């Protein structure tokens, strides 16, 4: 536990603890507001009545002066006080002078990139460090263009947009926030997993024999031509599979026709990328699969 306290209380890690608390609080806030709204709607109230509650007859617009200006002013003061207290309580870290010959173990990226660094366990750098970050940014940008649902604009609701919210929460809370926390708190020397009560032993090794996908399931060497072909087939099937799966269900087909072909293809590809991560994590952690597809030029 001492080790855990040491990591949590590192000045640069304090913000992560703060972030986790805030994310937890706001998740609760958003979902409980959504529940309230959905309940009111189920009772037959209009969107406006449900969202405004008992203030439905207040004016819709207010003057910026003084209402918004005073709020901004207070927020600025509160934040300033908060920053002063934080800055007096905790000093920014400064380690030894940079020395290319002394590699710290573990070497970690800044905390907000530790989710990506954690993905390096499961994918090679060209995917984890280059492809995925770009897919994340592009994926976020296209959200408004692939979400065909006009409902839920400007208020909290879950029932009116269950799919969008589920996917976003999964991506944000699990694949981003949780992985960031894992990369920060549980990854010690050699990027080995340490439980909070374990000491970060620099000499720890984990005996892990990894196999590739085709070796494991077909007994065919992943480096051979056939092995590579099998790997390619798995990847080549994964994307269409994820895109096709929803079409089995009536709701999925409705969604697809509402979206149109281009939107649906973009959505399906992004979803396949997103789900590939937990799938690969599962294969790696439980079956010790290192690569699915091995080629002379790159491995997946």
């Amino acid at each position, binding site marked *: 536990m001492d080790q855990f306290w040491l990591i949590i209380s590192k000045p640069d890690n304090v*913000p992560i603890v703060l972030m986790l608390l805030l994310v937890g609080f706001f998740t609760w806030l958003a979902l409980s507001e959504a529940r309230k709204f959905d309940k009111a709607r189920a009772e037959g109230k209009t969107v406006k009545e449900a969202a405004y509650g008992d203030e439905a007859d207040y004016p819709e617009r207010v*003057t910026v002066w003084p209402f918004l200006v005073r709020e901004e002013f207070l927020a600025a003061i509160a934040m300033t006080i908060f920053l002063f207290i934080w800055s007096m309580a905790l000093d920014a870290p400064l380690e030894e002078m*940079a020395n290319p010959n002394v590699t710290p173990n573990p070497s970690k990226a800044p905390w907000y990139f530790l989710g990506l660094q954690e993905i390096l366990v499961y994918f090679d750098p060209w995917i984890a460090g280059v492809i995925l970050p770009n897919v994340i940014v592009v994926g976020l940008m296209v959200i408004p263009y692939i979400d065909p649902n006009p409902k839920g*604009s400007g208020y909290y609701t879950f029932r009116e947009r269950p799919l969008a919210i589920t996917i976003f929460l999964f991506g944000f809370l699990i694949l981003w926030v949780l992985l960031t926390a894992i990369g920060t708190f549980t990854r010690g020397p050699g990027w080995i997993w340490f439980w909070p009560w374990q000491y970060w032993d620099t000499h720890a090794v984990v005996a892990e024999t990894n196999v590739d996908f085709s070796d494991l399931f077909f007994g065919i060497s992943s480096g051979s031509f056939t092995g590579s072909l099998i790997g390619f087939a798995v990847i080549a099937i994964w994307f269409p599979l994820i895109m096709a799966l929803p079409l089995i269900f009536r709701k999925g087909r409705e969604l697809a026709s509402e979206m149109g072909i281009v939107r649906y293809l973009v959505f399906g590809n992004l979803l396949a990328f997103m789900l590939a991560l937990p799938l690969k994590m599962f294969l790696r952690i439980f079956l010790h699969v290192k690569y699915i597809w091995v080629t002379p030029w790159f491995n997946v």
Partner: protein
Amino acid sequence: MDTDALKKEITKGQLWRSVMRHDVEDNPRTRVLKVMSNVFLHLHPVRIPRFGLYLKHTWCMGGLTFFLFLVLTVTGTLLMFYYHPTKEVAYADIKYLEFDVPFGMLLRNMHRWSAHAMIISVWLHMYRVFMTGSYKPPREFNWVVGVLLLTLTMLLSFTGYLLTDDQLGFWAVTVGTNMARATPLLGHEGPFAELTGASPYNDIRFAMLGGSVVAGNALLRAYIWHCIALPLIVAMFIAVHFWRVRKDGGISAPQ
């Protein structure tokens, strides 16, 4: 003495009028004028949807992100007075700040913690915009601008990380930029590097660092991106972002 009379005397006088351009009485007319005739306040519309006032609805996160950006600009400018972006003195400059400059440590702390806070607040802002469905038409484009701002905010923080020239920053940036090696076609360890002839001395990582290792040139490049280029780009996108919040009908609200 009659303070009301004095107040009137002042606020009707030429000096006051030349600066403020409007009365101080609180009535609907001056409420509008106060916002319209002030260059800073007129970033706002005159009236906003009531939902824009609700903490429950905005979490105040966009505003706090902007405020943190301002705090970072001010503290960053002050830090620049004491900092030289060269391998010879950068680290010593930080030590000097910590031990000799009056309130130097406080200044450094404020800059660092505001940076962390801005990362958190920009994530939370995105989170709330999603949860209130505020990216939906007509606000799609402003969401895109927002995602760019999110990316730029993280790059700003990342480029700042190197500037202390200590082990923490050096290795964090080494780990981060090593990823660029693996870029397909453009990085020397990436897939198909042979095709483009990418080597450690001409690949994309070299372009980022101004060299094949994180050294003096990388420090200078990080400094210029951090203190000049990125803040300007972010300021520009923030301007677009705020403009669009207004043009898209103000803050979202249930219709």
